[in-house]
Structure formats: structure tokens, C-alpha cells
């Protein structure tokens, strides 16, 4: 009995439900309703350059904030006593187990014009400020939702850095800043790159966070795709073309990230 035939059901499944659908995206992106070849839809994507730029820009900002906020958290966690680390990590990751719609909804109620933040401002005689339906709110939503995705990979590389590394660095005359930039940062590069991809990919393709916190004026690529398939603007060909461009952008970003990764261990 050949063991490799065990995978036959999955191979069929994989071809029909993973490979064919992705090929369908490419097919729809390059054909008209009648089925003849066209580059019209791909070139139409250019009309939405502003939305693409906004998506890339907002998700880059969110990724950068996540990195800056998460780095010290991961470091502090990794230097705690071993038995505390597990519990602390669980506490940090716990909000991730709530559905992201509820987490985003929480910010909707906090930031709203009648929300609690404006209410507190009102008590000290300030505001009300326009907090919701701004691009800042969208970035905040991304940071809130994806911060643990940055903490986890950073923590798992830092946890492996031996304490003796710090002692050696200080014995050799490094002060703490030098130790940080010459020892900790270089050793945590794999965590940085996988953290960046784990935050950037969902951030650039989200369509709910922008809709719930950004109002109508902060459309992202995800919203644009969703509108072509389920919205009023029904046009699967254009939707497929936008999806294809999004996939290419992500592929480029991941390739760039892999260049920085010494172990080449990111999923690809």
C-alpha cells in the first residue's frame, strides 16, 4: 500500500477549492463578461490609486505603532521569571480570543460623538471632539486589533535570548543602549519581520475596521473589493482585478521582509 495515496482526498480538495478559486480570480481579472481577454479592469484599478495609497499608508502607520508599542512589552515579558511568563502571555493574548467585530465595536462606543471619551472631555469643559469616522480612528482600530500579533512573534524570539548575552555585552563595555541595538535588536530580527507581516497583511486588507470606525470617508482596499462582490457596485471582474493587485502588493512586501530574515523562516 502506497502511503502517498492517503493524501488523495486532500489533493483533490486543494485543487478544487484552493488552486481553482485563485485561478478564477486571475481569469475574472483579465476577461469580460463574454469571456474575451481584456486588460480594462486591471487598468481601471488605477482609478482607485488614492484608496490604495491610503490603505498602504494607514496600515504602515498602524504596523509601525504596533512595533514600537509591542517591542518593550515583548522584552519585559521575556525577562520575567519563567513561571510568570506563561500567565502574563495569556493575559496579553486574551482579548484576541474575543471576536474582532466585538473588539472594534467596543471602540465604536468609546469614540462615538456621544461616547464615553467625549463625555469625560465634556465633564472638564472640553470638546466634543470628532473622534470617530476619522482616519486616526481606523489606525487605532488596527493597532488595537493586531497588537498581539506583533507581541507574540517578538516574544518568542526574545525568550530564546540567553541572559548571559547581556552579561557578556556589559562585560565587553556596552551600556544598556548599545546592548539594545547591538545585541537584542539583531537577535530579534526574525520576530520583527514576522510580526510586521502578521500585522501588515490583515491591516491592509481589512474592510470592517474602516467601515465601523472610519465612516464612509475612509474606504480601504478591502471595502473596495467587498463593494464589487456584495455591494451596490456589483462588478466581480473589477473586484477580481483589485484582489489580484492586492495579492501582488502583499507578495512584494513579504519578499522584501524575507530579505531581512537571516533564517528565511517566514512561511514561504
Amino acid at each position, binding site marked *: 500500500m502506497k502511503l502517498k495515496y492517503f*493524501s488523495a482526498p486532500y489533493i483533490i480538495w486543494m485543487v478544487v477549492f484552493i488552486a481553482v478559486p485563485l485561478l478564477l480570480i486571475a481569469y475574472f481579472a483579465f476577461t469580460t463578461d463574454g469571456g474575451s481577454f481584456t486588460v480594462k479592469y486591471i487598468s481601471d484599478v488605477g482609478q482607485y490609486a488614492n484608496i490604495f495609497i491610503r490603505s498602504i499608508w494607514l496600515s504602515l502607520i498602524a504596523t509601525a505603532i504596533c512595533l514600537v508599542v509591542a517591542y518593550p512589552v515583548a522584552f519585559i515579558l521575556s525577562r520575567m521569571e519563567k513561571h510568570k511568563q506563561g500567565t502574563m502571555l495569556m493575559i496579553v493574548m486574551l482579548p484576541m480570543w474575543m471576536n474582532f467585530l466585538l473588539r472594534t465595536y467596543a471602540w465604536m462606543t468609546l469614540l462615538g460623538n456621544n461616547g464615553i471619551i467625549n463625555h469625560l472631555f465634556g465633564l472638564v469643559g472640553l470638546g466634543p471632539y470628532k473622534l470617530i469616522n476619522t482616519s486616526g480612528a481606523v489606525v487605532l482600530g488596527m493597532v488595537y486589533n493586531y497588537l498581539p500579533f506583533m507581541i507574540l512573534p517578538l516574544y518568542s524570539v526574545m525568550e530564546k535570548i540567553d541572559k548571559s548575552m547581556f552579561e557578556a555585552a556589559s562585560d565587553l563595555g556596552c551600556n544598556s543602549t548599545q546592548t539594545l541595538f547591538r545585541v537584542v535588536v539583531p537577535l530579534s530580527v526574525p520576530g520583527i519581520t514576522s510580526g510586521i507581516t502578521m500585522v501588515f497583511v490583515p491591516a491592509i486588507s481589512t474592510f470592517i475596521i474602516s467601515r465601523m470606525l472610519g465612516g464612509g470617508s475612509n474606504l480601504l482596499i478591502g471595502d473596495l473589493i467587498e463593494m464589487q462582490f456584495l455591494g451596490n457596485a456589483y462588478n466581480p471582474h473589477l473586484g477580481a482585478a483589485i484582489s489580484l493587485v492586492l495579492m501582488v502588493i502583499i507578495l512584494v512586501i513579504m519578499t522584501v521582509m524575507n530579505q531581512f530574515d537571516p533564517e528565511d523562516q517566514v512561511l514561504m
Partner: protein
Amino acid sequence: MKKLGKFYLILVLLFLYVPIFVLIVFSFNETKSRSVFSGFTLDWYKRLFHNKIIISSLVNTILVAVAASIISTVMGTLAAIGIHSMRKVPKAVVMNITNMPIINPEIVTGVSLMLLFVFFAARMNLEFGFVTLLIAHITFDVPYVILNVMPKFNQMDPHIYEAAQDLGCSPIQAFRKVVLPEIMPGVVSGFLMSFTYSLDDFVVSYFTTGSTSQTLPITIYSMTRRKVSPEINALSTLIFVAVVIVLIIKNIIENKSAAKNKTVGEV
């Protein structure tokens, strides 16, 4: 320096938890106000339990998560056995395609499956509903099972399967008694991972289900689109409590098995 670190950690935890606690507090609020707490009530919880849409979507969510994770675990484990014994090139091809749903943004997976179903729907009388939802969930679940089981095969000594057969086991007995126990931890974590992903999924479900098979995340989404009702807060509170209970149980089990391993090691 240590104090500063603690202070920073507390700040980040506040950022993560305050929004959730505000939701919880306002689930007990008498009025619909989202900023002023006017009095305690359990009305929103009562309403929640009488909300037929929420109950039926909860049932749907659990049904699809159970079915999808069981099918994915069986198919994914069989697939891992087969892939493990493949030659280098076909193995690389299969693994690269398997990684696609994990690397691709969820919206692309959702949209691509939707295109496929629309394509079939026109030709095969297929309707968007439970079946399409289940297919979609299995599709994004199986890769996680394979990625959890594969490393166990790589760690396993390939000769023990042959040794079992030399000692008189049939191939099926050898698999059941020798291989299965070795890969079991991977199978279990693959199952749990696909179950939680199914339970939590919104984006792929959103594109692949019909109006007859709404899942809880989809119902939550439509609730946030309509008028604000503190029922969502009540629902969030219940989900939060459930998550805390599950994680505490998980922690206890892990600590117990860690303690067990430790005593075994000491003996």
C-alpha cells in the same frame, strides 16, 4: 528601570482591556446611553436569550465549526501522512499551495471561493448556505491541521513503522498502535486550532454563506450596522466570560501535564 517596565506593561494592558470592560459595564446599564451609567439591569441579557436570530446563528456557528474541524482533522491528518512520503518536488508544490489560504488575506480567500461558488451555482443548482459555508471553512481549516501534524512526522523515527510490521503488525495495526500515538499531539492541536478559527471566522463566512445560514460573527456584524442595542454588550460579556473560563481550564490542564512530565523526568 524595573518599575518603569511594570508601569509600561500596565499601560498596555489598560489599553487592551479598558474597551472590553466598558462594554461589560454598559451591558448592565438601564438605558441605551453609551456614556452615562444610570442604573443596574439584567434586561439586555433577558432580551438576548429571547432573540431567535442570535440563538439560531449560535447553533449554526457551532454546527459548522464542529463539522468543519472534524472533517478537516481527518482529511488533514491523512494528507500529512501522504505528503510526508512524497518526493521532494511534489511535496514542495503541495505545501506551497497549502500555505496559500494562510498567507493570503482572508478577503481574497473569501472572494475567490465566492467566485467559484457563483461559477458552480449557475451550472449545478448550488445555493449559498450551509454547504458552501462548510466547504469554505474546511478549506481554510485543513492547512492548519497539516501544518500541525507535519512536524510530528518529521520528528518521528521512520523505522518504527517498519519495525512494527516486522514484529507482525498489519499496516493498519502498525499505524494505529505506533504512528497514531506519535502524531496525536499534532492532530489534537490541529483540531483545536481549526475549531477556534471556524468559531471566530467572519470574513470568509461573510462571502460564502447565504441568508439561511448566518453565523454568530455575521449576526454581530449586522447588529453593529443597525441601531445600537446594549444586547451586543451583553453578548460580548458572555463571550468574554466563556473565553476566560476556557483559557483558565486550558492553563490548568497544561500545568498539570507539565507537572506530570516533570515528575516522570525526575523518576
